[in-house]
């Protein structure tokens, strides 16, 4: 860091570099948005149950214990592929049976969901399980 490299040069490189890479990021974002329809199963959003299920997912803070496509908390199983792992009936029966009350075991609260809400949630989980995630997770256990 000799006198040849001045603070104002460093500052200019900072602004130039930041603007360049920010624009590049925006260009990649634009391209991603163009490609997403092929991967994100958006056709399923035509079914109102999917959006309703997403709201149930959010309003009960499921992400506070579970992961969804690997993001969330690591206290309870991955649910991005739970539809494929367990199927719709098991998921509903499981949610209704909580909490297990088994001593010392991790407990999931009962969220008192109606049958319609359970169906909506399952529709959302089915949608999530069909997103093209580049083959992740490595196996069905999530």
């Amino acid at each position, binding site marked *: *860091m000799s006198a040849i490299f*001045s*603070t104002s040069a*460093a*500052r200019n*490189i900072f602004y130039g570099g*930041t603007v360049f*890479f*920010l624009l590049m*990021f925006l260009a*990649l*974002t634009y*391209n*991603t948005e163009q490609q*997403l329809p092929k991967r*994100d199963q*958006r056709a399923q959003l035509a079914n109102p149950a*999917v*959006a309703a299920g*997403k*709201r149930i997912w*959010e*309003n*009960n*803070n*499921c*992400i*506070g*214990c579970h*992961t*969804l*496509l*690997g*993001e969330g*908390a*690591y*206290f*309870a*199983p*991955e649910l991005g592929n739970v539809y494929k792992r367990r199927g719709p009936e098991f998921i509903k029966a499981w949610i209704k049976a909580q*909490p297990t*009350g*088994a001593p*010392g*075991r*991790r*407990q999931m*609260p009962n969220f008192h969901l109606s049958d319609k809400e359970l169906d909506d949630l399952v529709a959302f989980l089915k*949608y*999530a399980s069909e*997103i*093209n*995630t*580049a083959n*992740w*997770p*490595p*196996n069905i*256990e*999530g």
Partner: protein
Amino acid sequence: MQYKSQAVARHYFTGALVLFVAQILFGLVMGLQYVIGDFLFPEIPFNVARMVHTNTLIVWLLMGFMGAAYYLVPEESERELYSPKLALVMFWVFLVAAGLTVVGYLSVPYATLAKITGNELLPTMGREFLEQPTITKMGIVVVALAFLFNIGMTFLKGRKTAITTVMLLGLTGLAVFFLFSFYNPDNLVRDKFYWWWVVHLWVEGVWELILGSMLAFVLIKVTGVDREVIEKWLYVIITLTLVTGIIGTGHHYFWIGTPEYWQWFGSVFSALEPIPFFAMTVFAFNMVNRRRREHPNRAATLWALGTGVMSFLGAGVWGFLHTLAPVNYYTHGTQITAAHGHMAFYGAYVMVVLTMISYTMPLMRGRVANSNSAQVLEMWGFWLMTIAMVFITLFLTAAGILQVWLQRVSPTPMGFMAVQDQVSLFYWLREGTGVVFLIGLLVYLVSFFKGGKVAT
């Protein structure tokens, strides 16, 4: 302290430390729930403890940043704060809003909280780290705007330095990217894609600008090295940060439905993200070695050096560990992520806020530095918390490696809960070191009340 109005920072720092204690207590609750699953159930389910743990962390770091800005911007600008009264009012608004939100988390089921705060009008809740009711999020925006106005006016009317310019840039970016928390499309892939514009572009983007400027400010003060040299370093570090970190967002776009070229962009750019952190370490040690004075506040110098080392280890090394797509394919969403998250947040953001507090608190209390005995106690707090965090990270890494192996690599993969039972030894060890961390925090807090002969 050269300007009277800098003293508003004291409120922010005190508030931050109170929330820090709450954060750690709820962290210990969660840690215990990892091994005694029904601990405090149904009173405090894990997800509630986690919201309190992560949200108090975010809020106390923001308070730390704001306090730091209220202290350093007047001093750098060589004038009083534009409106100390606004700063104080906003402190109480922020603290009460944060407190009410935590009370909401703890007192009613989350779905009820969503209902009574009108989440269906503008649904933003229920996404990781952005669990706050929409109305709290709006409150955060109001506080941030009032804060930026106050700091911005002070900046505009005074001397402009690289430190304040970079800090203001970082704080503005913080406010701007937070606005993406109001965007919650039904399309899960797009929801996740833009969610990272808040989370990643905060912690691996604009927050690093704030971190850099805070560190640079303290280093100028404690080492007496020329401002010219330090400011040049600052620009170099933040250039490296944003050049690597912006496209580095791609390391979150591997497996969420986004195009697969992100595996290349994300891997290459995020693999370079340790470089700015390494530069920060070299910077801190270099400046301290070239110091032109022996500042009596040795604890502050220790925190500054600690920030350099621990942010490099936590954000740099532990980030690199699982950032390449072929590795991340196996580690994504495991305890490896948790290990990295803990050390990175502590090493970078917790430590830089504590650096700032360590340097400024004695000054705001009318002395250049605390008594020797108070500093010794503070340094005990430093070492206990830092070493505890190193072991928390190592134990979570061990748990993570085992988890990845048993659940994802092995030819006969085990289910999630079966694996959790297998790795419980490491969760117990983590909880033990968590208790050591709490002891360190308490020792640190006691150091504020330790008297003794002080330098003036």
